[in-house]
């Protein structure tokens, strides 16, 4: 304060004569920059290796450049065609199509375009293949529309052309509509025929199974966490190892264990038959269905429920329960009115964590789920590696990601990401 008394008018100065305020803010800025410099390499690394791929997936779910890139002239010519006129496009469109196809056939891109349009309009793939084989035999000087119609009547279909016009932009909502069992038909957005509605069913099943697994984890995990939290520390540390061992064991090991145990000729059925609970000719089907998924996933996710529950319950003083009992509460009332409400944060943390993990699970449902126990993630994998409909895979992924991010945000609000504990 000597500086202030020496110079009552001016600001407080630090030892080197700079105003204290500026000197402090400079120090703070330097500190911030140093922290950022330490974080920057990792941030850049994660953005490049992880965030960019996710962004790429978001982009792919709406990207549609294949149509305007493969048949640019046709897309432009279609702009002048009135799709409400009730008539197929005229000669200029077909001439443009002819020119585009000549190039596309040479580069062999017309089949890719065909399969892209086939997602929206069945039959487009074979139409493009068939025409692609004959396009070099067409007579350029004669009217082209008739020649196209000679190859396939499909070229005169107004609905087909309306579809091509709808999907000739650079971006499309088609994949998202497909992921929601909808399609962008000639009369606007409509739902797909009943027999093709699979994604809503899958999303529904994913949600139902995930909720079941989360509830099962809670029911099974709560007593364990309670026991661990109320036992003396030495004993609970020993027992905690029984929880941590599955947590550290390879996921594939646990899944293969269940695959082996749950088989019809497996250990569990053998024991049930031996005890006499089940007849030898009526062995239970425990695997390759939803039951298998629920059992195996409950086992796999159980540590993720027990550990957050345990860390919350550890902080609840057991004396509160004793106090409640000494005031005349029964065991149940003391637990339900005093202990349980205090353990709710743990339940929230554990349940959200289990739900987030289970909703996006791929490996276990794939191996033990059969056809009725698979999740939306299995469908995403199928579209990436088998059907090659990457756009649809990306759209399904985006929807799943959105659900998970909302839950993540909730988790952050309730628990805080900083408070995530491992082991």
């Amino acid at each position, binding site marked *: 304060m000597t500086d202030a008394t020496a110079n009552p008018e001016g600001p407080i100065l630090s030892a080197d004569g700079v105003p204290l305020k500026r000197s402090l803010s400079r120090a703070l800025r330097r500190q911030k920059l140093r922290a950022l410099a330490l974080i920057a390499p990792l941030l850049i690394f*994660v953005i490049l290796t992880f965030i960019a791929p996710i962004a790429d997936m978001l982009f792919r779910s709406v990207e549609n450049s294949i149509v305007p890139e493969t048949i640019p002239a046709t897309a432009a010519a279609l702009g002048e065609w009135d799709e409400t006129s009730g008539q197929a496009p005229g000669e200029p469109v077909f001439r443009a199509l002819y020119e585009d196809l000549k190039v596309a056939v040479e580069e062999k891109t017309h089949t890719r375009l065909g399969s892209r349009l086939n997602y929206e309009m069945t039959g487009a793939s074979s139409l493009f293949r068939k025409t692609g084989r004959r396009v070099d035999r067409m007579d350029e000087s004669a009217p082209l529309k008739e020649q196209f119609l000679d190859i396939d009547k499909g070229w005169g279909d107004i609905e087909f052309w309306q579809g091509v016009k709808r999907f000739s932009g650079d971006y499309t909502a088609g994949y998202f509509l497909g992921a929601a069992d909808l399609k962008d038909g000639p009369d606007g957005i409509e739902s797909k025929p009943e027999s093709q509605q699979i994604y809503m069913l899958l999303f529904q099943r994913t949600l139902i199974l995930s909720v079941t697994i989360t509830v099962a984890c809670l029911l099974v995990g709560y007593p364990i966490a309670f026991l661990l939290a109320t036992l003396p520390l030495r004993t609970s540390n020993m027992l905690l190892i029984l929880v941590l061992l599955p947590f550290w064991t390879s996921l594939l090991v646990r899944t293969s264990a269940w695959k082996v145990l749950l088989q019809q000729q497996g250990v569990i059925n053998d024991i049930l038959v031996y005890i006499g609970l089940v007849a030898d000719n009526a062995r239970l089907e425990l695997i390759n269905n939803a039951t298998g998924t629920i059992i195996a996933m409950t086992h796999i996710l159980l540590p993720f429920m027990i550990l957050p529950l345990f860390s919350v319950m550890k902080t609840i003083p057991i004396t509160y329960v004793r106090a409640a009992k000494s005031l005349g509460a029964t065991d149940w009332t003391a637990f339900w009115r005093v202990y349980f409400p205090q353990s709710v944060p743990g339940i929230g943390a554990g349940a959200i964590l289990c739900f987030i993990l289970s909703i996006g699970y791929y*490996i276990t449902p794939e191996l033990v789920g059969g056809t009725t126990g698979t999740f939306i993630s299995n469908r995403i994998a199928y579209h990436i590696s088998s059907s090659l409909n990457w756009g649809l895979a990306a759209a399904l992924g985006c929807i799943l990601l959105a659900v998970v991010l909302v839950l993540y945000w909730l988790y952050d609000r309730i628990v805080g990401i900083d408070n995530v504990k491992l082991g």
Partner: protein
Amino acid sequence: MALPTYASTGQTVWYYAFRVICGLIFFFLIFPILTIIPLSFNALPYFTFTPEMLRLDPAGYSLEHYKDFFNNPDWQGALWNSVRIAPVATLLSVAFGTLAAIGLSQSHVPFRGAIMAILISPMIVPLIISAAGMYFFYSRIGLQGTYWGVVLAHAALGIPFVIITVTATMVGFDKSLTRASANLGANPVRTFFKVQMPLILPGVISGGLFAFITSFDEVVVVIFVGSAGQKTLPWQMFTGLREQISPTILAVATILVVISICLLTVVELLRRRSERLRGMSPG
């Protein structure tokens, strides 16, 4: 809570019933892992206990499946790939992650929440989505199907674990120690290696072990980002389980269980040590 002497019959019954229920749940947790160990020594290629095994007849047991694991080129190649990928990915996550965790535990970090959310996200985003995104993006930039593609992907997945464990250790770190070191004339690098690093080492090692197990165990991302040349042990197990399930898988599983027991022991010892150092443990 011990049972008080004045407990009624109902309370006593419930007390023991609760213990039995808990015992059953512990059994549920542990028995699938323990069952596969004896099954892996089955002399016959079955997945259940044969009468010979139940009689504890030595003829019912053999090391057949282990021999297959060590002689089969598919399994050996997969093991070699796992050993080649996981340590490098771990090294990357630990190096970047520790630096960033130190940065994050400074007192003034701008946009701390947002940065933390981005760094933790690889743990939260479902693996299938990470795998899909990486597959699309890495094939654009030519990393798909390469060794480095898999290593980078696995490093990204391991980072949240390093961040979480190291920031947790940094909470108990006394910052005046770095100031004291600077006061005694050490430059920041020397301070880091001589003062800070030895103290946060348990956290760094357990973060590294988490990152290692993440990569060593990971199968979804490697299936999409890798090609046949990067087939890891879990991938080989996955194919085995999906196509022709052979008892060799049980032998591999047993070996992996032994490895996880070792890792768990190391992590537990480290945790106890650091708790003891901070005076948080009962001893």
